[in-house]
């Protein structure tokens, strides 16, 4: 372990120990806040499913939401329009290969996380959790990553194995 890392560990330890006691030293101007007040912003999903909300949706339900809210940019059957195709993708063989959900994304949870936080592009965070699960199921089923009738929810989504899961090399392991 480098000196630098040792130092950071020492700080970590001091913070962990120190913070169990008083918080009196600093300005102390942050307001304590509870889970209910945080909920609307608490939208990050981890690959193990941490953060996934209650709710469920199927590909068939997703198809009708898609037709209303996504079709105009991502095209018919999600084959691409003015914005990216959400289905298909050839093998990744180099920098000119087009990255898609199916050929590149390592975790299915990212599909839920990204649609919920960022789509539809002009009206983000207007979809219900059921709609996001349904759209996620629609995209995964179109790509044959799940069966047509598999519902997506907090239990099933983290179990979806993405084809490119092991396609990555950590660039600087010592920075993690």
């Amino acid at each position, binding site marked *: 372990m480098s000196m630098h890392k040792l130092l950071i560990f020492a*700080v970590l330890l001091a913070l962990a120990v120190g913070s169990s006691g008083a918080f009196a030293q600093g300005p102390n*101007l942050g307001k304590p806040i509870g889970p209910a007040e945080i909920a609307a912003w608490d939208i990050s999903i981890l690959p193990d499913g941490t953060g996934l909300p209650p709710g469920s949706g199927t590909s068939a339900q997703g198809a009708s939401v898609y037709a209303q809210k996504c079709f105009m940019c991502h095209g018919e059957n999600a084959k691409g329009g003015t914005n990216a195709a959400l289905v298909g993708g050839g093998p990744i063989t180099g920098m000119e290969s087009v990255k898609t959900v199916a050929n590149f994304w390592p975790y299915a949870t990212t599909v839920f996380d990204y649609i919920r936080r960022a789509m539809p592009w*002009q009206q983000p965070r207007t979809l219900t959790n059921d709609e996001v699960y349904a759209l996620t199921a629609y995209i995964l089923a179109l790509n044959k990553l799940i069966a047509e009738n598999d519902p997506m929810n907090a239990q099933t989504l983290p179990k979806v194995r993405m084809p490119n899961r092991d396609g990555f090399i950590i*660039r600087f392991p010592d*920075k993690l």
Partner: protein
Amino acid sequence: MQSKRSKSGWLEPEVVAGNGLLDRRAFLRGGAAAAGAMMGYTFVGSAAAEPLADDPWSKVPGGISPPYEQRSRYEEKVARTLSNPKGEPRTQHARTPHHLINGTFTPNGLHFTIVHAGTPDIDPDKHRLLIHGLVKRPLVFTLDALHRYPMVSRMSFVECGGNSAPFFSKEPIQASVQALHGLVSCAEWTGVRLSTLLEETGIDPKAKWFIAEGADAPALSRSVPMTKALDDAMVALYQNGERIMPGNGYPMRLLLPGWEGNMNVKFLRRIQLTDAPAMSYYEARTYAPVLPNGKAYQFYFLQEVKSFITHPSPGLTLKGPGFYEISGVAYSGNGRISKVMVSADGGQSWAQTALQEPVPSKAFTRFRTPWRWDNNPAVLQSHAWDEAGNVQPTRAQIVAVRGETTKVPPVTGFPSQHYNGITTWAIERNGEVKHVYA
């Protein structure tokens, strides 16, 4: 400085490398001999200057000082170039015109910006910063509250992971340094260390990462190792002394000195400590450059040691033979720049450049060196080293590992990311500067 007397009798600075590169100390010393040598050369054959007279603006009182100064109306061409000026549903990039500015700080109006769904118009009084997750107690901060915390200032470059992507093109794309390297800028940032705020929330020892999220439409989020949080991460509130520009994250942004631009989350509203990365869109998909074997780098994070010449560069045509200052910027996400060498003969011989003091860590350092152009074709390159011993690679070294395109991509495209290799400018006989590979 070593000098010798030329035939005309002027003292001439020593040529230290091929094609007329001069000793870097020639200008720095600034002594009479050096100045004489410089001027002596340009005097040869030049006609006498015209008589001087007062211009109209010198003979009337001038304008009123405005509350917020604008630059001279003669400078309006010094501007960023926009990739999506109509705000269509896709990313917008605004690139810094490095060839039209000088020094080491990027003026706030010219700092590069990238937004994925427009720039939000945030009311600072309503903005909140939440810190939660694996902490002892979640806290929410107003901007007013953050202003009462101890602050720090530091210079730091911010560079998009996709800056310089045109260098992956199989053939050199003819474009300005702004188009090729315009997604990096440098500013002085002032704010509160993230570790100062974490002292008050406390840290659960299980926390290994934090997720940073913005208040923009796509709620852009990135995962960052906790080691960076406790090292030099900052919640930045000021940019070059004034509040952060809207496009750079008003009213607050995460600053991770030396790390990939996209991770320096703008419009920062939420920090969640976690035991694992979120694998958000931008880390799982976008900033994962693909290698020739089909595997992709994950968690690149670092912006590695790099330099490029801004003067001269494409568009800045040399006006006849004589003295020029070659200058550019060098920077490294690993620390300070220790040395920059410049070549005028395509890398056959190198001259050490003068580094402008101070040389800050993880920020722009301007290098300068005097050059006497003899009107023959020349090939300019710069090559940087950092204090950690990292050396800027050649383009060939990068391409050998990372590959290159089979077709020439558009100059605004991003075939791959994290290019920190050498840039080469060819000077043609007529003084035009071309982008070439060497």
